[in-house]
C-alpha cells in the first residue's frame, strides 16, 4: 500500500525532515522558522487518507498533483511556483477543521481545495470563510449550496445530489413508472430522494413506497420483503459508499433485480470494484466523470493520457477526477487574476469558463455551484467488459445547464 511519502512530492520534505526527529521534533518545529520565499503559491488539500475512502482520497491527491505539475511545468502562475500541501482529515469534521486552521495559520496557504464528506467540507468552510480564504469544495452535497453555508470565498466544484439524481431519473423513468425508494436516513440520503422526487413529478412517475434505513446499516434483509411487496418497476437506492455496496448486493441476493431495475443517484467506481460485476450488472447511476468519456471528449482524453503518463498507466476514477477539475479551475482563475489576490481570484472564478476533463464548466453566480455535465452510467456485465477497467457504459451525458440545479431563490438567495 502506498504510504504518504510516495504520494506527496512537493513541499513535504522539509516538514518531514523536522518531524523525522521524533517526538522531540515537535519541540523543534518552532513556528518562526521562516518558510521559503513568500512567492510560492501554497494550496491546502485536506482529504481522507485514512478511513473507508482512502482509495478515493489517494486518487484525488494524484489528480491534484497532476494539475499542479501541469501548471508548474508551464512556468507557474506569473512565474510563481505552486505547492500542494496534502493533509489527512481522517473523514472527521473536527480533524478537518484543525488541519485547515493549521494550513491557514501555520502554513499560510493562499487557498484550500478538497474534502470528500459533506460534514468535512462544511467544517472546512466554517474555518475558511471566517478568515477570508478561498475554498473550492469537491464534496458532493446539496447543503453547501444553501445560503446558510454560503460565503463569497467558497466555490462548489463537485456535482450535487440534486443534479445526479435528476439526471438518472430523467434517463430511466417514464410516465407511469412505479418507483420504490430505499433511502439512508441522513442529510445526503434525503437530498438524493428530493432530487429523484422532483424529477419524477416532472416525468409523471409515481412513488409506490419509501423506506428509510439507518445510516451505516450492514444488513438490509429486513427491508427486502416490504420492497418486494411494493412491486416496483424501479428500485431507487439513495445511499453512499459501503451502504451502497451492501444494499445493492443484498437486493440482488433477494432477487429484486428480476423484479425491478436498480438505479442509484451516484454509481461509485470503487464500490463497483468492491462488490464485483455480477452484482452491479445493469445498475444505472450518475457520475461526474468516467474515463470512458475519452472516446467522446477530447478534454477527457487529454486528462486521461496525462494521468496515465504520470501514474504508470492507471486510469483516473470518478472521485479522483475531482482533484483535477477542482484544482485546475482554481489555478486557471489565479492565472487570470495574475496571482493570489483574493478578490481578483474570486472575480476570475466567477467569470471562468473551463473544460479540463469533462466538457464545459462554469460557476453560477448566486451559489458558486459549478454548472457541468452529468453522466449517466450503466454497469456492464462481466462478459461485456473489454478489460479490467471497462466497468461502465455511458448511457447519457446530460449537458451542463443551470436548469437542473435548484433555483437561487429556492436556496434562500435574494431573487
Amino acid at each position: 500500500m502506498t504510504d504518504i511519502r510516495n504520494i506527496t512530492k512537493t513541499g513535504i520534505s522539509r516538514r518531514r525532515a523536522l518531524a523525522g526527529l521524533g517526538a522531540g521534533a515537535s519541540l523543534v518545529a518552532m513556528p518562526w522558522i521562516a518558510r521559503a520565499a513568500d512567492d510560492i503559491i501554497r494550496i491546502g488539500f485536506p482529504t481522507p487518507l485514512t478511513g473507508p475512502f482512502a482509495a478515493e482520497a489517494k486518487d484525488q491527491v494524484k489528480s491534484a498533483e497532476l494539475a499542479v505539475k501541469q501548471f508548474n511545468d508551464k512556468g507557474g502562475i506569473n512565474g510563481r511556483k505552486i505547492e500542494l500541501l496534502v493533509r489527512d482529515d481522517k473523514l472527521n469534521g473536527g480533524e478537518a477543521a484543525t488541519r485547515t486552521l493549521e494550513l491557514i495559520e501555520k502554513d499560510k496557504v493562499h487557498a484550500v481545495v478538497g474534502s470528500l464528506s459533506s460534514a468535512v467540507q462544511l467544517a472546512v468552510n466554517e474555518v475558511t470563510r471566517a478568515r477570508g480564504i478561498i475554498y473550492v469544495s469537491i464534496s458532493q452535497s446539496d447543503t453547501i449550496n444553501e445560503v446558510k453555508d454560503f460565503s463569497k470565498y467558497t466555490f462548489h466544484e463537485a456535482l450535487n445530489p440534486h443534479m445526479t439524481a435528476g439526471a438518472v431519473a430523467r434517463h430511466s423513468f417514464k410516465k407511469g413508472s412505479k418507483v420504490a425508494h430505499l433511502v439512508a436516513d441522513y442529510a445526503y440520503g434525503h437530498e438524493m430522494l428530493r432530487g429523484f422526487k422532483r424529477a419524477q413529478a416532472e416525468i409523471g412517475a409515481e412513488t409506490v413506497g419509501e423506506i428509510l434505513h439507518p445510516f451505516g446499516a450492514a444488513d438490509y434483509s429486513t427491508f427486502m420483503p416490504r420492497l418486494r411487496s411494493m412491486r416496483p418497476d424501479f428500485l431507487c437506492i439513495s445511499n453512499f459508499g459501503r451502504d451502497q455496496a451492501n444494499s445493492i448486493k443484498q437486493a440482488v441476493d433477494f432477487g429484486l433485480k428480476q423484479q425491478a431495475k436498480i438505479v442509484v443517484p451516484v454509481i461509485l467506481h470503487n464500490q463497483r470494484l468492491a462488490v464485483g460485476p455480477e452484482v452491479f450488472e445493469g445498475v444505472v447511476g450518475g457520475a461526474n466523470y468516467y474515463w470512458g468519456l475519452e472516446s467522446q471528449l477530447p478534454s477527457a482524453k487529454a486528462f486521461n493520457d496525462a494521468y496515465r503518463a504520470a501514474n504508470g498507466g492507471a486510469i483516473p476514477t470518478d472521485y479522483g477526477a475531482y482533484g483535477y477539475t477542482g484544482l485546475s479551475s482554481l489555478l486557471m482563475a489565479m492565472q487570470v487574476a495574475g496571482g493570489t489576490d483574493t478578490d481578483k481570484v474570486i472575480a476570475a472564478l466567477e467569470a471562468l469558463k473551463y473544460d479540463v476533463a469533462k466538457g464545459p464548466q462554469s460557476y453560477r453566480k448566486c451559489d458558486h455551484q459549478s454548472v457541468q455535465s452529468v453522466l449517466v452510467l450503466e454497469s456492464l456485465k462481466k462478459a461485456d467488459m473489454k478489460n479490467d477497467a471497462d466497468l461502465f457504459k455511458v448511457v447519457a451525458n446530460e449537458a451542463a445547464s443551470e436548469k437542473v440545479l435548484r433555483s437561487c431563490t429556492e436556496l434562500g438567495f435574494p431573487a
Partner: protein
Amino acid sequence: MDTELILMQLFSGVALGAILVLTALGLSIIFGMLGVVNFAHGALFMVGAYAGLWVASLTGSFWWGLLVAPVMIGLFGMLIEYFLIRPLYGRSIDDPLLLTFGLSYVLVEGVRIVFGTDGIPFPTPSALTGVLDLGVGFFPIYRIFVVGVVFVVVLLLWLGLEKTRFGLIVRAGARDPTMMRVLGVDISKVWLLVFGLGVGLASLGGVLSGPMRSVNPEMGSLVLAEAFVVTVIGGLGSLLGSIIAGLAVGIVISMTALFAPEMATIVMFALMALVLLIRPQGLFGKLA
C-alpha cells in the same frame, strides 16, 4: 399490512437473529469463562472474513475457506490470549478490555495494510445462490444455509459443554477457577482453548457473513456493537441467554423495520440500556 408480509418479516427476523447469535456466542463464552470483555471481537470477526476470502482464493473453494479460516483465526486467538491477555490476570478487570480495545485498532489497520482499504468481493458459493420460494415470500438460499450452520454450531457447542469432560471442566472453571486449580486442573490451558474457541466462533461469523455483506476493514465495528447488545441482554456468560437474546433482537429489529425502519439501531441500544438498568445481569446471566 397483510399477514404474508408479517410472516415474511418474522422469518427474516429469525434469520437475522441467527447471525446475531453467532456473533454474540464468542463474546459471551469468553466473558463467561475468562471474565474478559473482548473489545477486539468485531475486529476478529472481520479478520475471519478476510481469512476465509484468502483461503477460498487459494484453494478455489468457499468450503475450504469456511472450514479452515475459523481454525486458523482461532489459533491466532490463542496466541493473543497467551501473550497479551494472560499477563493481565490478577490486575484490574478493566485491563483486558482496554488492551483488546487497542488491539482492535492494530488488527483493523493491519488488514488495511495487507489487503487495502477498499472492499473486496466475496462471491456467494455457486451451490447456494438463488432464492427459495417460501410460500409467503422469497428468501435467499444462502441465508437459510447460514441459519442451518448456526443451528449446528449451537448444537455442537451445547453437546460439548454438557456431555464431554472438557465441557465439564470449562463450566466448573467458570464458576470457581481457584477450586479447579486446587483439584489439579491446569486452568490456564482451559482458558487458552476457550479463548481460541470464542475467537474461532467470531471468525466463523465473519466467513459466513462475507457473501452477505461487503468485506471491508470497517465491517467489524457495527458487529461489535450488535454483539454487545445481544450478549448483555442475554446475560454475559450464558449460552442460552445469547441464543434467546439474539433471536429476540433479530425479531425486534425486523419488526421495527416494518413500522419505523430508521429507528432500528436506536431501538437496539435503547433495549440494551433498558435491560442493563432493570436487570444488569441480563436475562440469564449471573450478577458481577
